[in-house]
């Protein structure tokens, strides 16, 4: 067991060290578009040999030390040091540079950060923490990161410069992204839960519904947006009230419709599977004691199916947080706006500014749902 976890730790530590040794930690560029000169970790502006050695020691520590809690703490400490070195290095490199010069995070930083995060996740999994404990364990580092961000530690890095330049776009993108995800989730639930129940009570309904949803799920998202433009555009021309509400062939409306359609299959399939998984004896007991069908559904079947149904909703939320990025192609808003704008300007840091919040939202959503699902499993309904 200890050997296995040590081997796993080595699998994360060695690429992290190799990345730091072989690839630049930061990139220094004359302006935001040209390619730049790599700066290695041990350069005097960044870590100097001392900082580099400390980082290497932390990463190696995750392999040498056996206790999982200590591995978790060391991996988080390595991440913190990586971020601090990047922030410091950014400030130092920009100090004597002209105004248009940019400092971006380099391949070495990304590889080391990714593998340190994986090492922390691996240690946390081996600790087999509950969902709430996982949230608590991540809250402190997240708080620290937030404070460092506020204090301006990373202000000289190109990605933060992009944020400063596009702050209003970013804020609108955050609101737009959440609106896309929640706006599609609510109608999907209102339609999907009853459809799942229909599949459960009627084999004929199931034979009709599931193939259609499977077909929808396999339609590529860009094609789906295109296909929705025609009917929604026609609808808004025919019904002026709808146009006043912002419904049209482009914009948020077709994006929300498409995302809701993608959400249907996981919700319907998991509602069906959850209800089917409720043992027949539970129905027999409930009916035999005089529960009406509606009460049996509300008090017995749905609570017992809840973990499976919530797992479906978790899939949908995480999936749509990612898919919503594509909505920007048809003017739907969201973080995709930043991604596509960055691609258009060949400004990779702007692309990152759109991508990282999407990843963070997805992680946050899945942690939250894990906690909710865990609490619904209490009471021995495991």
């Amino acid at each position, binding site marked *: 067991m200890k050997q296995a976890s040590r081997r796993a730790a080595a699998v994360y530590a060695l690429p992290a060290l190799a990345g730091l040794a072989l690839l630049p930690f930061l990139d220094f560029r004359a302006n935001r578009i040209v390619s730049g000169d790599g700066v290695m970790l041990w350069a005097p502006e960044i870590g100097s040999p001392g900082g580099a050695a400390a980082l290497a020691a932390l990463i190696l520590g995750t392999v040498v030390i056996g206790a999982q809690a200590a591995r978790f703490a060391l991996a988080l400490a390595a991440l913190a040091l990586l971020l601090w070195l990047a922030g410091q290095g950014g400030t130092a490199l920009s100090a004597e540079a002209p105004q248009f010069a940019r400092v971006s995070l380099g391949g070495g930083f990304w590889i080391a950060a990714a593998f340190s995060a994986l090492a922390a996740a691996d240690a946390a999994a081996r600790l087999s923490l509950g969902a709430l404990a996982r949230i608590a364990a991540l809250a402190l580092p997240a708080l620290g990161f937030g404070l460092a961000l506020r204090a301006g530690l990373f202000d000289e890095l190109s990605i933060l410069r992009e944020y400063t330049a596009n702050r209003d776009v970013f804020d609108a993108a955050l609101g737009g992204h959440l609106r896309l995800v929640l706006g599609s989730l609510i109608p999907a639930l209102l339609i999907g839960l009853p459809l799942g129940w229909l599949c459960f009570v009627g084999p004929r309904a199931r034979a009709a519904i599931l193939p259609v949803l499977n077909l929808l799920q396999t339609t590529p998202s860009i094609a789906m947006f295109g296909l929705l433009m025609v009917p929604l555009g026609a609808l808004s021309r025919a019904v002026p009230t709808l146009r006043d509400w912002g419904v049209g062939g482009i914009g948020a409306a077709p994006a929300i419709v498409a995302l809701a359609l993608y959400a249907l299959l996981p919700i319907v399939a998991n509602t069906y599977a959850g209800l089917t998984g409720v043992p027949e004896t539970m129905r027999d*007991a409930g009916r035999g004691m005089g529960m009406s069908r509606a009460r049996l559904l509300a008090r017995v079947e749905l609570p*017992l199916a809840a973990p499976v149904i919530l797992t479906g909703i978790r899939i949908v939320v995480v999936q749509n947080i990612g898919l919503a990025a594509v909505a920007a192609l048809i003017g739907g808003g969201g973080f995709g706006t930043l991604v596509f704008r960055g691609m258009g300007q060949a400004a990779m840091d702007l692309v990152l500014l759109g991508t990282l919040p999407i990843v963070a939202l997805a992680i946050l959503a899945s942690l939250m749902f894990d906690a909710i699902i865990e609490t619904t499993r209490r009471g021995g309904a495991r």
Partner: protein
Amino acid sequence: MIRVTGLTKRFDGATAVDSLDFEVERGEVLALVGTSGCGKSTTLRMLNRLIEPDEGRIEIDGRDAREVSPDALRRGIGYVIQGVGLFPHWTVAQNIGTVPRLLRWDRARVRARVEELLELFGLDPADYADKYPSELSGGQQQRVGVARAMAAEPAMLLMDEPFGALDPVTRGRLQDEFTAIRHRRGITAILVTHDMDEAFRLADRIAVMDAGKILQIDTPERLLRGPREGFVRQFVGLDDRALRILSLHLVSELARPAADAPAPAQWVAPGDTLREAASRLIWETGDSLAVVEDGRVTGEVRAADIWRIGARGGV
């Protein structure tokens, strides 16, 4: 009182239950016994209309069961399902309170009834009321299952293999508890089992079923002394019928007066069965045993009397 006449159920043309007639008096326990697929569970489930009969009539306290809505009917009939069937997401108290809550009893009354029943089944309410079923042993779950069926003081209980999934020792203890509670509270019940011993221990009358028909319905003793030819004879089992008959009688029925004395080494209590007394007599190779209450001899029971009870044509 329950009166069933001409009860029939067909599944896809095959007759599962064929024109049954029987009655159960208030305070009586009737056992339906037979092999798997003989129609005994189907019969039970027709009584609370979980399965609707094709033909026949079910009267409960003089009222046709079809006149009542199925849900209302079921709330008035306790149901102990096969495999316990406690709701895993509800506590013991919530499980027991299921039917009272459906009947809109107020909270305090439900709580009081739950505590009363837990005490009746030997489970301390302070320890068990807020536990979840997964935290209980099999025997405790089974007790809660029966308590749940009795919660709203139903006119009768339907029990489908109520102690089926338990080890023999726990099953025996629960059967004794059930009999004790029956004598204190007076329970009317229809019990489905494939275990003849369970039927002998719990039931006042036994209906032996095969292929959807009741072949014989009688008291345990009459069933043992005069089983019909064929399936009943085979199912009841005649190898140890003398001993089974003895186990239906108590020492107190045969006790003769005897001089007061301290208890000897070997004795029986008035509440022991004649089977236990017979076993002790065989072991001691004696021809009589002292009957002892509270450490003093109060009578004696003679071997010759016991053998007479166990003999063909005995009384």
